[in-house]
């Protein structure tokens, strides 16, 4: 491996931290704006590079364990922050995103994982990568949507109008919902090939269905006369259902017979 995990993680966190600092200074000195963005971006690039080298070393996609999925979130969440800044000129989201990514990397540094190349036969499928990646990106969008909604709630509490922020949390939720739908159906199509049935109410499936329903509910409430401003709390909290689905399921009594629990190491 070109560099070990701790070095890569520290380098990425360093890039995000200095990038964030510079971009705070850039409010007064606009010349710092570009270096700030490039440094923050470099942090994610370091993680992407690490994932690529880890992938080739493992001879399998690093998507099998919870810790491995955290690597992907850490690489991708800041990118959503940069995208939102680029698209909607909203600058604050990227700080939250880089903070969240740092949090994921710190968890991984505190709980080092076994370097394990094995991949059980059921996971050896062309569906493995699309199913997990679509979900990953969906979760990333919905995490950003939830953070935006929380920010909107805090603005509401201080009685500040914020139509732009509400449309960001809305479109991120919409994108996230589309990706959840694809993830769910890809999962069903894969399950038919691997386990013989497209839907068995496995606890992970049940929770994926629940989180899908949560966002389905949001979209219908939005479509009806309910004010988007009032739905920010709902959007902020919906992400909790996703968190249960992502790793909380492992701790539930129903998970005993699940085929979906991540390898614990």
């Amino acid at each position: 491996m070109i560099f070990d995990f701790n070095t890569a993680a520290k380098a990425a966190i360093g890039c995000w931290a200095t990038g964030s600092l510079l971009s705070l200074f850039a409010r007064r000195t606009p010349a710092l704006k570009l270096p700030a963005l490039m440094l923050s971006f470099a942090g994610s690039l370091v993680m992407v590079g690490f994932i690529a080298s880890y992938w080739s070393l493992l001879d399998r996609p690093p998507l099998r364990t919870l810790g491995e999925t955290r690597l992907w979130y850490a690489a991708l969440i800041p990118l959503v922050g940069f995208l939102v800044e680029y698209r909607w000129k909203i600058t604050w989201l990227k700080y939250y995103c880089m903070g969240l990514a740092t949090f994921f990397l710190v968890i991984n540094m505190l709980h080092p994982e076994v370097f394990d190349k094995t991949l059980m036969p059921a996971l050896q499928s062309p569906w493995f990568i699309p199913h997990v990646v679509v979900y990953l990106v969906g979760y990333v969008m919905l995490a950003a949507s939830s953070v935006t909604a929380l920010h909107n709630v805090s603005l509401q509490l201080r009685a500040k109008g914020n139509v732009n922020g509400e449309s960001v949390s809305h479109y991120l939720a919409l994108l996230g919902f589309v990706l959840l739908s694809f993830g769910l159906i890809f999962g069903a199509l894969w399950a038919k090939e691997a386990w013989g049935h497209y839907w068995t109410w496995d606890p992970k499936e049940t929770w994926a269905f629940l989180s899908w329903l949560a966002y389905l509910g949001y979209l219908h409430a939005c479509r009806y006369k309910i004010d988007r401003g009032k739905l920010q709390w709902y959007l902020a909290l919906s992400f909790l259902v996703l968190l249960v689905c992502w790793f909380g399921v492992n701790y539930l009594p129903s998970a005993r017979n699940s085929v979906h629990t991540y390898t614990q190491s």
Partner: protein
Amino acid sequence: MVVVRRRWFQTPWEFRESSLGAALIVVAGFILQYATSGQGVPPLHLPLNAVILVLFAVLTLGVGLGFRENRLVQWLGGIPLGLSLIVALALLSLIGGVIPQGEVAPGSLPALLGVNQIFSSWPFALTVLLFLVNLGLSLSWRLVPFSMKNIQFILFHAGFWIALSCGVFGSPDIQRLIMKVDEGGESNMAYSRESDSEQQLPFSVFLHDFSLEEYPPQLFLYDPRKNHALQELAKTTTLVHKGVKASWKGVAVEVLDFLPNALPGKNGIPEPADRTAGVAFAKVRITSTNAVPTYAWISSISPMMKPWAAPIGELLLVMAPGTPKAFRSDVTVRGESGQLVTATLEVNHPINVMGWKLYQMGYDDEAGRWSKYSLIEVIRDPWLPAVYLGFFMIMAGNVLFFWNGIKQKEVAS
């Protein structure tokens, strides 16, 4: 803004009445479940379930189009009731997502209420039925008069209606059976997970060969007094190969030599052997603190051979066989009218034969790669094409939803 307080059941009915409606249907379901002693919904098979589903669809469409000005029908197909039913479905799913499904004593309260089999219980069935009514009515109003503007709505909602209704109505028609076929043998009998009674299939399966590939073996410390393996050593390294080092509480282990397939030879030194008979051997150096290093050969296990282990204090250093990497069965399937299909079954690579899908399911776990038989799951689901049609419509609807969302955003900004 003046807040006008609505009275109960003031038309048009909204969220209050809808929540009440959804709550009532769930409660009615639980009462029905209790009254039928926790029997759940009786299974309806083809063609009866298909006839009922078609009648249900026609009725929903007919009522939606014939009475679209009726207040009650408008409420039944409206968003408030839809949202309330989404919440009800979510709460029922929450029960199924928290309470372990399918393992309580019959006659106990959870069984009588169906919470251990929530997805085949009356409350779930009635909620899904009302949800299908709601979805179907809203769909009928977008279908007629038809407009391309509604295509995204139609694809998503009709897809969901088809997938959900066919999945639920069709579930009693799914047959999942297991065949045990010996190497060099042929069978046309299968049994289900629920009952051991065998039934005859319209085809037979001949097993030419079962084969299993493994990952390299793993090192473990085994405690003979407690009869269990300690995981700690395996955590520092997993796959055994030449040069691997592992350590545990002041004991260092290094693999000096590794033979993937070998048999015991003269003077206690293993000799390479054929894969069908040999097991993995490793020469290890064990170094404990303040002690002279010891050298030993250890091996994994096969039905023909006990494993070689090396003592470390009161523990034993053992080598467990690697986890399965792939396993497959070479089979020939023969239909009743004599047609032959030869194929290889593997996990994730089922084959379609005469309306059935054949899956590589398992093997003799104790014998591992020396298993003399293969377990094959055979599955028939006549409703699958309809459910998949629904899935693809949902996906198409989602692509348009995504696209329209982006376009609206551009208009808004």
